[in-house]
């Protein structure tokens, strides 16, 4: 099963920091997602993209996690050579993860 089967996600940017939310479509899958999708695993998943740390925040009442990925946007939205300067597409990359 892919994360995309049970969760949705959106990426945001501030400077060189990207945040990716991960939200269970159905609350009953939140605990599974919380258990399987750790900050370490997300850091590993984006290992060529994210040079800094990954911090995870939890919002159980919404079935949601928020991953904050530091040094993730090639120097920041206004500078980066990346084709997706804001990292808008990264959420969909996270959803390809097997769970």
């Amino acid at each position, binding site marked *: 099963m892919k994360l*995309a089967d049970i969760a*949705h*996600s*959106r990426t*945001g*940017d*501030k*400077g*060189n*920091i990207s*945040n990716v*939310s991960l*939200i269970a*479509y159905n609350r009953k899958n939140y605990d599974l997602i919380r258990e399987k999708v750790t900050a370490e695993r997300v850091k590993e*998943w*984006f*290992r*060529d*993209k994210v040079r800094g740390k990954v*911090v995870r*925040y939890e*919002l159980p*009442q*919404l*079935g*949601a996690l*928020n991953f*904050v990925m530091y040094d993730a946007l*090639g120097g*920041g*939205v*206004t*500078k980066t*050579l*990346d*084709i*997706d300067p804001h990292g*808008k*597409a*990264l959420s969909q*990359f996270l959803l*390809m993860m097997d769970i």
Partner: protein
Amino acid sequence: MRTIRIGGGAGFSEDDLEPALDLMKYGDIDYICFECLAERTIAIAQQQKLANPRKGYNAGLEFRMEHVLPLAREKGIKVITNMGAANVERAMEVTMEIAARLGLTGLKVAGVMGDDVFDKLDRYKDIPIFETGERFGGFKKPLVSANAYLGFEGIAEALDNGADVVITGRCADAALFLGPLVHEFGWNTYEMYGKGTLVGHLMECSSYLTGGYFCIPGKSDVEDFWNIGFPIAEVSEDGTFFVTKLDRAGGRVDVQTCTEQLLYEIHDPASYLTPNCVADFSGVRFEEVAKNRVKVTGATGRPATGKYKVSVGYKDSYVGISELGLCGLRWKERCDLYFEAAEKRWQAYGEKPEEHQFSIIGYNSICRDAEHMNFDLTQIPEVRARIAVRADSMQRVKRQIELANPPLSCPAGASILTANFKEVLAILSLLIPCTDVNIRVFYREV
């Protein structure tokens, strides 16, 4: 309990106007807020103002005001926007001219100023650059702008004094929405500022709340995607609010779209730093009370930090980007050959870029990590090979892209090249004492 209805009229400098006009016509709204300034927009606007003192405000201001002002008068809707960008004064004048031409006598236009702290930058030599921690005084690239993210104060004051249109430069996006709420309800606690900040945070990106940036057909469908409407917030005096959209518009407002937007550009949900409070969204709850109508509760706030975030725009570098297309078999080998040749040519001609990036669109351009996924490359029929370079002059990036792309000495079956070049205006941030900033509100009447 009294409620106020606010429309989200724009979430981007070049956002669509039609959904905003629909909100004004059919949304029974009291206010409409147009958020039109991204991180770097004001630095670009400042450059425009230096070239022409009559410019430097949002390029869409005239078009928007021509359509918005008559409706605002007809429906009694107040208009709040940061379209002043780097030139609030001129944006006010242009708005006045349009109002006069349209015969909207008595219209009161307010401008909020004080965000421009460029002349004060000398004071901040010993302040660390937020992104790098290095001393700002040691930063040597040419600076072009410095603007503090102001809070709601100037907007609320303008509305208290009867303004029909409020034009600001840089302010926190959410402040555009918090301003009218403070004006209407007289809120004066951090808890209420936190609740009002959530209204603004959900609303400030227009259709990001109503089905934009969300739809995956077959998985998270959005009704009438072609016609996504902009959001409306209906806010009560106690800070409880509902978000919704027009029935006549497409889109979707539910717990899923709201949760995505809640976390958009948020780091620690319990500590969202704003000029007016540290907002706490960690206990937010959404409840679908009807189709496309969501009740929002649970935000709060703590005292603000006493610092304003300042975005400093500077001339960083020049960037050149080229792409060519390939299809068929062994495209990966041909891309690798092409990239390797570029490096050798830069080396041979002494033109190594400061920074460069090779990527393959269709394979690893958005996220290089795709390489680890072991796709069967023969299943990918076509790609584009992309080279991006950074250097300290336009001449140099053009030369580097030229060297990487000798017109006919290319790999087999490469399509003709597309290339573009740009100057990079970048942004760094400083945190300065709020006491250094003097918010001023000016008024003009048609």
